[in-house]
């Protein structure tokens, strides 16, 4: 069967687009061929900076003939109906239609439409121009004389030639002839731009790849990557070094060369004074070169770097290495300048006095100066949420409070919060935004900050995703949580939450960060606790305050501090409300509650994702959140028998706890352990059975006793169950109060045997109404007992 070879040769295609473009080409061509009725055995795409290639094997030479019969009207049908039929079937007269006889319907017309199969070549020539014209480049352009007229071909960069041959292995392939905007397909390509610029005539993929290889073009990107990596590793090793590997850079570099040649360059050792990350990023971003480190020294860099050139130079690459070295040196000298400038005094320090005072900054220290300038310049955090300075003001107070909860020194936490964003004003972060935090930490160390403060400056951004490290030092934990919570609360207050795939402020990541910090550090923090509530209300009032600025009511806006009590803030809210008749204090508080509870359910959703990713059963979260512990206020009316007093008191307390993510996770874990045992499995089945019976009877309106009357218990099994339920419920309640969820589960697991025995030996639907009502009440007790830990009906299986 014939093979198809297609090459679209272009001026240099951006490296980051090549892989996807080649994949798109394969998909577009194969889809169009299949749509046209052809089949193929295999297709492989290739790419270099200057070409996209498709090697398609075993294409059917022709599409199949298609025969279609279309039933028409009876032969004696009105003329109009016959005409319509002929038109629809594409026939010019009735003579072209067949007449069939049906014993019931009589004679009627049938149109037999035969579509001849077409040669693959013809199909290819037909589909290619539009595939090329409509190619899905992220950005495309017009060029040359053709661009004088509207509608000229658009491509990522000027398209230079199209190679398209087709034919079976046994025959000489033919050129599939077509044209796009004056570019005519052929069997000609060109080799390496400098090594082999001559035209190359090609027959099929085998000789194409071979000839390109001889013309110094490695067609396969994976092979180019392997060549670069192997050569770079060896070159480093031969110099007593180790390559600092970088997959992203490797991919990019492989898209910049057709004939990779790896060389080594050097720079002066004095630049090694710059932090290794800054050196690596400088050389990577500007030069697309790899850096090396001395063997066995993971934290150091050497003054050598690895260049990937595109030619085999006459002089063995001396000039190339020399030239690259010059540029790297110039870039590093800029980086060194940034690094030093950031440690020196800013000009105009006197202007920063007010900001310095506000944050308790010491203007003798460089990082303090940068924070003062961040505030002084009024750099925006978000148009609606105010400046970075205002944000830091909020988080420093909250950081103090959380520090107290986590046993961190509140002064250190506040200091870390105050300096956390200072590095945004440094030259190095201006050049490499991805170094925010890490650079702040270095400068903090250099100016002698407490190690916990320096660490927190870096770690407060963490974790940056599901696999990033979670901070553990209490100071870092406090600032990291505060930073994320302020962001979430803020964006919720202005109602800019993530929707669908849109999450421009990475709020999902922030929420996951909070979850991971809390759960993985075993931190107890009520996300709806008064601290957070106050902070959020303060933020809301602050936002209102900004609205009032223009009407002269700005007196309180700047001095709102999170350290005010809820009462004080309420007073403040009241004052503000007076200034704006359209709002009321109540509505502000309600708005706050609403946005916080909405944020809380966002956390619950994220928690499910988190647990699912960890391989836990996320359906258990729904079950746990639906347990009585979290739903104390809306107990079902049929279930009113008085719970043990201590349990009841505890439940009320627990109901405010669905914002304690750690407790939720602990419950889920314990429940999951229980369900993994045979006892748990059976208890789940028994409880579900009890719940189903109850639900059915409740629906029917069957009477259910308010409480179990021991006197009405007749069978041994039900007596045993009553005793067991009573004991298990109390025991579980106690355990829950002590937050020992394993013990609670164990207590409940003891119910398994009596429940099983009950269902085996006792008929719930007794003829005697009182006995039946009493037994139903007993079932309700099972549901209530297990309901303390989870709503078992929400558990799958």
């Amino acid at each position: 069967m014939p093979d198809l070879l297609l090459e679209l040769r272009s001026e240099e295609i951006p490296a980051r687009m090549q892989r996807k473009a080649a994949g798109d080409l394969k998909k577009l061509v194969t889809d169009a061929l299949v749509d046209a009725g052809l089949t193929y055995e295999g297709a492989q795409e290739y790419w270099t900076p200057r070409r996209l290639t498709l090697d398609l094997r075993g294409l059917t030479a022709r599409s199949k003939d298609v025969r279609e019969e279309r039933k028409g009207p009876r032969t004696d049908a009105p003329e109009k109906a016959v005409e319509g039929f002929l038109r629809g079937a594409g026939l010019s007269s009735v003579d072209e239609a067949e007449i069939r006889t049906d014993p019931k319907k009589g004679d009627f017309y049938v149109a037999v439409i035969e579509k001849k199969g077409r040669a693959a070549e013809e199909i290819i020539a037909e589909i290619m121009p539009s595939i090329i014209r409509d190619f899905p480049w992220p950005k495309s352009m017009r060029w040359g004389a053709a661009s004088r007229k509207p509608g000229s071909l658009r491509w990522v960069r000027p398209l230079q030639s199209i190679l398209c041959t087709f034919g079976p292995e046994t025959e000489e392939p033919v050129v599939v002839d077509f044209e796009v905007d004056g570019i005519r397909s052929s069997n000609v390509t060109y080799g390496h731009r400098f090594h082999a610029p001559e035209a190359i005539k090609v027959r099929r993929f085998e000789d194409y790849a071979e000839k390109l290889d001889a013309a110094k073009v490695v067609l396969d990107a994976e092979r180019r990557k392997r060549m670069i990596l192997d050569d770079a590793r060896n070159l480093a090793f031969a110099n007593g070094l180790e390559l600092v590997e970088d997959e992203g850079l490797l991919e990019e570099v492989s898209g910049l060369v057709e004939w990779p040649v790896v060389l080594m360059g050097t720079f002066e050792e004095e630049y090694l004074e710059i932090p290794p990350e800054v050196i690596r990023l400088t050389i990577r971003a500007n030069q697309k070169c790899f850096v090396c480190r001395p063997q066995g020294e993971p934290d150091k860099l050497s003054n050598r770097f690895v260049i990937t050139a595109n030619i085999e130079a006459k002089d063995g690459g001396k000039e190339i290495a020399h030239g690259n070295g010059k540029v790297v040196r110039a870039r590093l000298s800029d980086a060194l300048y940034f690094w030093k400038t950031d440690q020196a005094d800013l000009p105009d320090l006197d202007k920063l006095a007010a900001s310095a005072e506000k944050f308790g900054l010491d203007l003798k220290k460089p990082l303090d100066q940068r924070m003062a300038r961040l505030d002084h310049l009024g750099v925006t955090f978000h148009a609606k949420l105010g400046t970075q300075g205002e944000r830091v003001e909020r988080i420093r107070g909250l950081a103090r409070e959380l520090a107290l909860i986590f046993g961190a020194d509140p002064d250190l936490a506040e200091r870390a919060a105050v300096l956390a964003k200072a590095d945004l004003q440094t030259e190095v972060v201006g050049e490499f935004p991805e170094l925010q935090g890490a650079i702040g930490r270095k400068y903090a160390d250099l100016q002698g900050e407490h190690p916990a403060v320096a660490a927190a400056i870096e770690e407060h951004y963490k974790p940056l995703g599901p696999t990033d490290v979670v901070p553990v030092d209490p100071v870092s934990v406090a600032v990291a949580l505060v930073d994320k919570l302020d962001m979430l609360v803020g964006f919720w207050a202005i109602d800019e939450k993530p929707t669908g795939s849109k999450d421009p402020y990475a709020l999902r990541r922030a929420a996951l960060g909070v979850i991971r910090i809390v759960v993985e550090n075993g931190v107890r923090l009520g996300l709806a606790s008064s601290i957070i509530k106050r902070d959020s209300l303060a933020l809301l009032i602050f936002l209102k305050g900004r609205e009032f600025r223009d009407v002269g009511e700005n007196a309180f806006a700047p001095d709102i501090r999170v350290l005010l009590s809820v009462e004080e803030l309420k007073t403040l809210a009241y004052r503000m409300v007076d200034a704006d008749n359209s709002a009321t204090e109540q509505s502000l508080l309600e708005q706050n509650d609403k946005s916080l509870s909405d944020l809380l359910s966002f956390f619950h959703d994220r928690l499910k994702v988190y647990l699912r990713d960890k391989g836990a059963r996320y359906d258990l979260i729904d079950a746990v959140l639906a347990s009585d512990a979290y739903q104390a206020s809306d107990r079902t009316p049929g279930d009113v028998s008085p719970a043990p007093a201590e349990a009841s008191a505890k439940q009320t307390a627990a109901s405010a706890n669905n914002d304690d993510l750690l407790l939720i996770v602990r419950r889920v874990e314990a429940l999951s352990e229980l369900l993994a045992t045979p006892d748990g499995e059976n208890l789940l089945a028994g409880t579900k059975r009890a719940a189903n019976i109850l639900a059915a009877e409740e629906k029917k309106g069957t009477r259910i006793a308010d409480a179990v009357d021991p006197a009405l218990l007749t069978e041994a099994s039900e007596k045993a169950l009553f005793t067991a339920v009573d004991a298990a419920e109390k025991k579980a309640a106690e355990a829950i109060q002590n937050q020992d969820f394993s013990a609670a589960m164990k207590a409940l697991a003891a119910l398994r045997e009596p429940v099983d025995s009950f269902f085996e030996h006792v008929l719930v639907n007794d003829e005697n109404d009182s006995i039946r009502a009493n037994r139903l009440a007993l079932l309700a007790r099972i549901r209530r007992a297990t309901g303390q830990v989870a709503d078992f009906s929400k558990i799958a299986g």
Partner: protein
Amino acid sequence: MNAMTLPNTHPTRSFQGLILALHNYWAEKGCVILQPYDMEVGAGTFHPATTLRSLGPKPWNAAYVQPSRRPKDGRYGENPNRLQHYYQYQVILKPNPSNLQELYLGSLQAIGLDMATHDVRFVEDDWESPTLGAWGLGWECWCDGMEVSQFTYFQQVCGIECAPVSGELTYGLERLAMYVQGVDNVYDLNFNGLEGDAKVTYGDVFLQAEQEYSRFNFEYADTDILFQHFKDAEAECRALLNAGAPDEAGRLHKCVLPAYDQCIKASHVFNLLDARGVISVTERQSYILKVRDLAKACGEAFLLTEAGGATFEAA
């Protein structure tokens, strides 16, 4: 290669030789060799021979040197690579010939870069000038890892679609000269190609200027006066465009080039204000938009002129 055996005007021996070699090369390729525009601009693109001439249907091929001023890049003459005043070599070809990449590589050969020993690469770089309302796709051209030129296919200029598209080449002359002369500090460049007492370096010509202008850009420039200059230029630009506007449809615009001068002036004044650090982040955007509006208005008016192709019929 032994430098001393080459003439002093050879591109690898003197800064001026480099310029002459590029002039000769592009003159041979049919370009009009222009002189620098006599106003302060941030880049060669601002020269009306590029900004305005890239608009409309008329073919246009030109090459010129453009002194370019970037006040913020001043380093008081202390940085070996960064200057607040430097030279760009600018080539504009409309429509771009289909072998523009080869022509460009030919120009590198012409200034003494041997393609068999140097690694020349075209690395993605999408060009955009917010102040000119212009963008295009193309590359940074690298020679041994150093960006020596910008290569752009103009798609839009002054907010107007380019039809046809022009190819623009911009060479950073100092960098290129440092490279071919093998010099690490821009001030050590040999300007005239002579040796000994007769040798004139780039530093001899420009070091004092870099120091003085850095002081001016960062410290001395009177910002009140500059703010006023900006307002004046903006007003004058609009007034001239109004004054020259055709009184009836089909007539030509009579005063585009002087108006465009005012747009250039506003742009440079903005750059100075920016260097003085008196323009806040939010204001910055609004100044850029103001200049862009002027550029757009000039571009639209230019299409109503002879050079803009108002009377042009394509062959």
